[in-house]
């Protein structure tokens, strides 16, 4: 066995030993030529070509293999279906109050998908129907606030990060101001001014106060991307501000924003439920899990299930979005691989 410290002879390396008369070398060139030929043969078939995957392609391949992502996707699709077509999932009117069916009757497990499946609440309304119809408010608030916040925060962060200097100073200070007001407190004060509160007033209040987190993430991300060579090259080649912003920087800076936004979505659903629970969020006739949980307090000792079902629905919804955000983050963040 040769000593491992012995230097490897030079002639083992074909590239270092190029000699036109050497047959080895000819062989080498021949092999390379063959390889090139094979490559040109393979290239017309795009399905077999090994593509350089983008960050998104990479993330997508990674995501498809994650059970957590698949579970949360199925849950979210189901929840969205329930939110759009609640009538498909229950035939019972969630507002029908029948005092013969009250909370003292236990949930009837044999009544599959029927009015009494989860039992009845303090006013004799079907808990199952209310859980189904309550999904719409939560999902709408979650998705709309997230969209609004991503748009608002994204624009503010992009402007601050891209222009820098004075605009950065001003935007960052405004962000700090809004960041200094706790979301829940601010929303309580704002919503208290609405005499009639719908889903939209809750969306406005949460979006108005919630955009700062994403603005900060976007700003940091834009500042990092702005310094990369392709942006400098784009600028040198005469690309305009909007082209630089939206073609070069945005696609490369948006990943952390999407991650934070997905995880925050669950938080907005919780915020809506908390506000409704405190009596300053949604109100009748909107059906909301938060309101139902709040009214379940009165009967919690005799009938804990009145609280349990809306609370479970709320938790599962939040869980689904947080799991989705977690999976997306793991897929997009190469540091964690």
């Amino acid at each position, binding site marked *: 066995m040769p000593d491992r410290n012995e230097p490897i002879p030079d002639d083992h390396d074909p590239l270092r030993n190029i000699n036109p008369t050497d047959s080895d070398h000819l062989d080498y060139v021949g092999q390379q030529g063959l390889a090139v030929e094979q490559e040109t043969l393979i290239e017309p078939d795009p399905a077999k070509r090994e593509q350089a995957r983008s960050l998104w392609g990479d993330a997508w391949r990674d995501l498809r293999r994650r059970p957590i992502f698949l579970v949360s996707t199925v849950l979210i699709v189901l929840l969205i279906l329930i939110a759009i077509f609640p009538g498909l999932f229950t035939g019972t009117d969630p507002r029908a109050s029948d005092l013969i069916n009250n909370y003292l009757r236990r949930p009837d497990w044999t009544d599959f998908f029927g009015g009494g499946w989860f039992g009845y609440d303090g006013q004799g309304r079907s808990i199952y129907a209310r859980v189904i119809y309550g999904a719409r408010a939560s999902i709408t608030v979650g998705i709309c606030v997230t969209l609004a916040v991503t748009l608002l925060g994204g624009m503010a962060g992009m402007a601050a990060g891209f222009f820098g200097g004075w605009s950065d100073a001003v935007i960052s200070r405004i962000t700090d101001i809004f960041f200094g007001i706790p979301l829940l407190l601010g929303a309580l004060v704002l919503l208290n001014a609405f005499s009639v509160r719908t889903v939209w007033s809750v969306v406005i209040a949460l979006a108005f106060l919630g955009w700062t987190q994403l603005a900060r993430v976007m700003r940091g991300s834009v500042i990092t991307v702005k310094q990369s060579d392709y942006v400098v090259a784009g600028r040198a080649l005469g690309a305009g501000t909007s082209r630089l912003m939206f073609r070069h920087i945005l696609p490369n800076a948006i990943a952390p924003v999407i991650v934070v936004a997905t995880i925050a979505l669950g938080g907005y659903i919780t915020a809506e439920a908390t506000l409704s629970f405190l009596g300053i969020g949604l109100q009748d006739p909107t059906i909301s899990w938060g309101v139902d*949980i709040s009214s379940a307090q009165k009967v919690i000792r005799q009938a*804990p299930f009145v609280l349990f079902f809306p609370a479970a629905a709320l*938790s599962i919804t939040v869980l689904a979005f947080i799991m989705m955000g977690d999976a997306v983050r793991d897929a997009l963040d190469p540091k964690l691989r």
Partner: protein
Amino acid sequence: MGHYVLRRVLQMIPVFFGATLLIFLMVYSLPGDPIAAMFGDKAADPATVAHLKHQYYLDQPLWKQYLHYMNNIFHLDFGTSFTGRPVSEIMKDAFPVTIRLALVAFFFEIVIGLPLGLIAGLKRGSIADTLVLLVTLVVISIPVFVLGYIAQTVFAINLGWVTATVQDSRDISQLILPGLVLASLSLAYVARLTRTSIGENLRADYMRTAVAKGLPRRTVVGRHLLRNSLIPVVTFLGTDLGALMGGAIVTEGIFNIAGIGNVLYKAINQKEGPTVVGIVTVLVIVYLVASLVVDLLYAVLDPRIRYA
């Protein structure tokens, strides 16, 4: 360092004025007449209304009201609530209660959250790691008010270990359950943040060096790994102290604790402008000071950061 502190303090000034102005506008320029609300359903005597409006400075334009309010604040006068009690007196009663509760919660965050994250981060992929991830995920998903009810029902009503509501907030043992409930969400975040941070730093070059040169495990983990991994956790904990006080609304409501959250909630419902603005102003100050302290702590934890 001195320059940095000065710059940060100067930056805090516009933020402080902006945040108080924002909350002032939200409270006073939005619809709803607090003076009319004082009379309930009864018709108000116009002369009394005018007198009250003058007394509370509500007959002035909004910007004058704000300047007047700010001027008073610098004399440590937070105004008078519509019930006639000085707001500073109301806060003097309520703030210590909330501070105690927040400190109990903060204690749990560090004592439970950090070790959980450390164990999970050091043994990635182990059963302990999976368990920590699973439990924290569940805790994050269950809203605090649901968790509060479950805790209250189980520990106070079914098991009878504690009283359902807090009778005396000076008794720390009564604050354990509400403190845990208040801490739950942040605790889960602290654990996950620590885990992620540890996982990232475990692969750092300095860790390999520290292990390779034969340092004892305690030194490697305690001095090298933990100190570097704690930076994002400290940021979170710092800003969370302010959030804990604001977030106490729900917990204080469930456990009937006469803290700042409870007072604030009632004040918002009754359109008690002066009380709301006063309390939120103090909360904003707490938040600003906390984030300044966090920034300064960076230098202690991470010598790579130097303030020009």
